């Protein structure tokens, strides 16, 4: 039984969900991402690590075209998801973002009730036909984000009234509620205390069974704990991309080694 699951997981991991080739990003005159190619597997947690300003968040925001909202940002190269070029003019970024959910660095619940925060995505995408459907989605999403037990009695109170860790889990529930295929997380724990961080990390591991998760993190321990694949970015270059074990035990590039041993960054 256990072996079977292992085989299944390995098979899944070999499926490529997102494939980036020769991606370049410019902010006005600044060349932020230089020729990055990476393959992100399905049902895998991929961690992006690297010092501040290395471009890992910028690259993450290319994957759901959030960079489109910034006027001066230009993206070159190709990024495909399930073989479909996401920068194809025929692709609507709005539909893309419904499939690629995102959780931000700072918890950003809407100034609405907890229920309305989670129901926001399903409502705008028409995922629920009836109120009962919607209730079901909200409950399932909150359960998946391990928040249900804490908020089930106060779904109508404002989401902004929760603690930081709860707010971040609410944002995860909100992202999960739209049934995405990929979940992007931009330093989701950097504003949280260690206990809340541990809860989120546990959650990420569970989410992997259903989604492909990409997480940007400053904490190498976190990358080691939650991810199967790790990409190390430095000054806009993708220096090394490999299995997480390999990166942390046997880095191929001297820059990676310097970074994980604390000599740069």
């Amino acid at each position, binding site marked *: 039984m256990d072996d079977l699951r292992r085989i299944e997981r390995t098979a899944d991991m070999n499926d490529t969900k997102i494939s980036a080739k020769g991606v370049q990003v410019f902010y006005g005159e600044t060349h932020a991402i230089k020729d990055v190619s990476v393959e992100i597997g399905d049902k895998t947690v991929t961690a992006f690590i690297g010092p501040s300003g290395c471009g890992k968040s910028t690259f993450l925001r290319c994957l759901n075209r959030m960079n489109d909202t910034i006027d001066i940002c230009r993206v070159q190269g190709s990024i495909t998801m399930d073989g479909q070029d996401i920068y194809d003019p025929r692709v609507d970024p709005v539909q893309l*973002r419904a499939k690629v959910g995102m959780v931000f660095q700072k918890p950003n619940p*809407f100034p609405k009730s907890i229920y309305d925060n989670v129901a926001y*995505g399903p409502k705008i995408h028409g995922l629920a036909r009836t109120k009962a459907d919607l209730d079901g989605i909200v409950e399932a999403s909150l359960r998946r984000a391990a928040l249900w037990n804490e908020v089930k009695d106060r779904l109508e109170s404002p989401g902004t009234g929760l603690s930081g860790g709860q707010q971040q889990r609410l944002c995860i529930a909100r992202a999960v509620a739209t049934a995405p295929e990929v979940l992007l997380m931009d330093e989701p724990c950097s504003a949280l205390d260690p206990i809340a961080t541990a809860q989120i990390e546990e959650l990420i591991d569970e989410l992997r069974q259903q989604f492909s998760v990409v997480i940007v993190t400053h904490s190498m321990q976190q990358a080691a704990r939650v991810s199967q694949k790790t990409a190390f970015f430095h000054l806009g270059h993708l220096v090394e991309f490999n299995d997480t074990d390999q990166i942390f035990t046997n880095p191929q590039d001297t820059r990676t080694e310097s970074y994980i041993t604390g000599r740069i960054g």
Partner: protein
Amino acid sequence: MGAFLNFPVVLLVIILVSVAGYLLGSRRASAIDPRTMHSRPHQHGWHVVFAAAAPAVLFMMLWVFGAGIASNIYANAIIPDDLPDVQVTSQQRESLTERELEVREEVLRTQFVAGVRGLAVAIDGYIANGNATEAEVDGWSADSVQDRLRADGQVVGSAVTPGMLRVVQDMRQFNGRVATIGPVIALVLTFAGFLVALRLVSAEFRARIVVERWIVGFLIFASTMAILTTMAILAALTLPSINFFREYGFFNFLFGMAWAPAGDVVGIPEGRNGEYESVLGFVPLIWGTIYISVVALLVAVPLGLLAAVYLSEFASRRTRSWVKPALEILAGVPTIVYGIFALITIGPFLQAVVGATVMPNTVSVMTAGVVMGMMLVPFVSSLSDDVINAVPQAMRDGSLGLGATQAETVTKVILPAALPGIVGAVVLAASRAIGETMIVVLAAGALSNVQGIEPNPFGAVVTVTTRIVAVLTGEGSGFDSIDVLAVFALAFTLFFITLALNLLAQRMVAKYREQYD
């Protein structure tokens, strides 16, 4: 001496003494060994300046303020009770109750004092023009005064009676004495402060701390000045308003359905002796004001809000960089220009559209309301733009990241988040609409006799502000009639309505701010 020693001269002396004080004070302090000193020499210099100037200047301000009050009290005190000017005629006396009589007499007295002050100002002007000396004025008789002053171009409101001239002459002498003593005391204060502060210069004296206290004092003074002014306005409005309410009746005013001041050409004959008596009801005026304000807000709020949404969420940086300043320039157009535009363009246009049967005049609620709405668009859009921009970018990212379109983000996340601030902006716009004057003077109508309320949006109405303008600038009414007292009551009520609206707006905006700080 009185002619030479007045406050401007004293002010000049204070400035000279201050400059000398700074130089002397800092020089004396420089002579001391700096290592033993608490304060630096320039701080000692400033201490001398403050000690010499501040008490004297403060005293002058209080003195001028107090002198006005004192002369008023003095004038009131020296009016003989049996003076015919402040007596109700025996003919009227018969038809009045004791209380009514009392109120009438008090109003007569107030009006008489106002006349006295007006005459005093006219005489001051006459003397300032070099036509007479103080001594000559004291010898004047009542019958020639009016002609003399009018010949010089001075404004004389009411007829000058011997009793009034007597009071004016007394009051002016009193004022003259007050005006002579004040500057002398101010000068004494200046030199006393100067000398004391100079003697205080020593190594131990903590000049810096005293100077800093003075500076904090001035900062407090500056920040309370606006509040004090508001209170002074309120005080100036309150007394005449209360007099009016007592004379006319508070509820008669507040719920009166007609406005027809006798001072205007067309009054309503209603008096017991066939004279014209003013009918001063508030309802038709506030109705006009609110009606026009509602129309203005119906125009301004949707347009302004949509403009703000476009500018902050959809416009490219280049578009925004010229549309926003353009809108703000529009906010700087004088309201009289809007008024002319309403009168000569919008009014005839509306009349052509709806026809002369519905809209007999080019002036109407719609004419004024629509143009006032145009005037308020930049106001609403600029304030809303600020509150929309204050919604954190994280909200937009969060919504877009979930696959919401920009329109969904605006309607479902940004506007709800900005709502309290937007409501605050709308309330502020409403209070501006209610207090707006020039547009309604030109474009709302200028009836002097209004009965009841006008339901037709294309009919002419009068507003609170237009009536204040009409009564105070009108030919027919002197400054001593009940019509003028009524104007104070109008201003008083208007003040409270706008004050209440502004307080409401402030609370809403404050509530909004709490959310994101």
